[in-house]
């Protein structure tokens, strides 16, 4: 039908082409040097700032450390054993999963909704766009103070509001369940600025004719959102989800400033436990073991995310 068309090489063909390439850089000594010259600097930097600390952490996790932080008694995997046997650590693990899951889901949901609202062409929408992205410019400490004011008992905004509406007053930061809610809400709020900005950009990149076509084809706004918008921004959603997931595992500032892991360790997330053990009680062996577990969990979940979620992502 069409003369200009030539079929694209199929994937298998592409592979065979790669195989046929006569020499990799093993083949030429000169290439080796060039490769080393290009990779060297980043390998050195990674080595110093990533690989060495990781190996050192692994090493430390196999020891008891004395009061100046030196590894003195080799205990093998006992630090790990202690952790896995500790109900407190298991609770911390569970709290972390609840926190991370809630933060990722809420950040993405609210972020998409805000971004979707902000792409509408309404009067004054620029104002809202600025407001929605404003938390990008808020530092963690400022955000913590802001939320402490809101959640504070007796003088806090929320409880004053509740009191004036004759609703039960909640001790947000001193009741275990509510404290978790409070830090999830605060974290989501902190995340929103960035998430909104990224998703808003993605939404604006969706060609409007796609919506026109969908509308003409009989798709309701809801159907358009689910079957046009979401697939179109899925690469961005996936990126945001990964970044938020890893960020949530590493959440520290808000927790340190708002609950310090309390009440009753309800918000004592894994990374906060690492901080406590390493920098408060100087228990480096234990802290290292916790770090290794945390790293494995993050890597594992990220892998799962790539394995199962990325299938549903469509890159153009």
């Amino acid at each position, binding site marked *: 039908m069409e003369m200009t068309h030539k079929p694209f090489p199929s994937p298998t063909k592409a592979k065979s082409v790669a195989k046929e390439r006569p020499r990799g850089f093993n083949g030429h000594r000169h290439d080796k040097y060039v490769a080393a010259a290009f990779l060297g600097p980043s390998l050195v930097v990674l080595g110093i700032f990533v690989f060495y600390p990781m190996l050192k952490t692994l090493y430390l996790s196999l020891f008891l450390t004395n009061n100046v932080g030196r590894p003195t008694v080799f205990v093998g995997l006992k630090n790990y054993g202690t952790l896995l046997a500790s109900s407190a650590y298991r609770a911390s693990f569970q709290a972390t999963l609840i926190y991370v899951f809630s933060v990722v889901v809420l950040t993405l949901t609210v972020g998409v909704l805000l971004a979707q609202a902000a792409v509408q062409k309404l009067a004054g929408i620029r104002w809202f766009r600025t407001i929605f992205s404003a938390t990008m410019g808020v530092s963690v400490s400022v955000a913590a103070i802001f939320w402490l004011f809101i959640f504070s008992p007796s003088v806090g905004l929320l409880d004053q509001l509740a009191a004036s509406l004759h609703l039960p007053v909640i001790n947000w930061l001193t009741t275990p369940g509510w404290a978790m809610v409070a830090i999830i809400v605060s974290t989501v709020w902190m995340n929103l600025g960035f998430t909104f900005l990224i998703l808003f950009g993605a939404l604006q990149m969706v060609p409007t*004719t796609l919506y026109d076509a969908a509308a*003409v084809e*009989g798709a309701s706004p809801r159907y358009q959102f689910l079957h046009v918008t979401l697939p179109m921004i899925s690469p961005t959603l996936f990126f945001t989800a990964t970044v938020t997931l890893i960020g949530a595992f590493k959440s520290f500032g808000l927790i340190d400033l708002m609950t310090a892991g309390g009440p009753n360790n309800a918000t004592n997330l894994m990374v906060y436990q690492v901080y406590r053990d390493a920098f408060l009680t100087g228990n480096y062996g234990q802290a290292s073991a916790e770090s290794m577990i945390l790293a494995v969990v993050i890597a594992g979940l990220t892998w799962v995310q790539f394995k199962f979620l990325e299938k549903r992502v469509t890159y153009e």
Partner: protein
Amino acid sequence: MSIELSGLGKTYQPDEWVLHDVSARIASGEFFAIVGPSGCGKSTLLRMIAGLTPITAGNLKINGRVVTDLPPKERQLTMVFQSYALFPFLSVQANVAFGLKARKFPPAEIDQRVTRAIQLVDLTAFRDRKPRDLSGGQRQRVALARAIASEAKLCLMDEPLSNLDAQLRVKMRTELRRLQQQLGLTVIYVTHDQVEAMTMADHIMVLHDHQVQQIGTPLDLYHHPANTFVGSFFGAPRMNLLPARVSEATELTLAQTLKVALPRPLPVADYTVGIRPNAITVLPAGTGAPCATVQTVEYLGAQTLLETQLPDGTALELIGVAPADYRPGDRVAVQLTGTLYVFDAQGRARMTLEGGVVHGNDAQTVSVADQS
């Protein structure tokens, strides 16, 4: 599937009409082209018919039903876009099935319709490809298949061929036309390309200056342009427009040079006269008094286009005599042998003088006098 546009208008700011008083009737099974230069509002008009842009004034009827304020999906039509508007994340067949799924058709019917539509556009071998793995022409055919699968009898097309290369565009014209006739579709087709409109359409609406300039068959528009705009918009090479004056009731002077006798009197006033290059014969050298000076020469193979200038500075485009060799600076003599269109000062058609003969009347030679 007849469509009736009565007094359609669109404003974004109060009193700034993007489109004003657009009326037309489009019969069932017709290929109706809307043509005009960019910015004339033709795409806006199409989007208003589709329901994608709200209608400010007037009424729209499809099949006798008023649909002015209905959303697109209730207008029972389909649309093909210049950018194809394919969903990049869906395969060819999923793209074609999109509307049917959104409308919750039973799977078996979807499958049958999609298969047929893809067959019609000859893409069966590519049904599992993603749009990114298709060429421009193939993508356009996917968009067509989607329109076909919806089985709506009214199809709106917004410059569907503009993103294709010239050769492919010519091929696709025929194919579109074939499909339209085969399926009995009513097509409203927006284009800025007069050739496309001329070659495909049953009727053409010419839009310019936010208004309808003329509606008619391609031949109508060519032979009886309602105004200077329509006259110069259709036909290549373009119609020459010469300033003219009637100083005595039956004598018309073109560009202060050429005199034409009028079959019936016209009021004494300034006019514009349109003459297509093929209505002017360039006389062989040595016959007749030369009056036009050649400025540029364009060889097109079969023809030679001459850009010339009359003594008063008016430009006149001519078709040279085949074997002759023209050079800038040559002076040539001409004879008016074809149709002359007389427009009034506002550009409205007043009179047609055909083949050196006033339309409908007995033969009357149009004398060409050299004034100099």
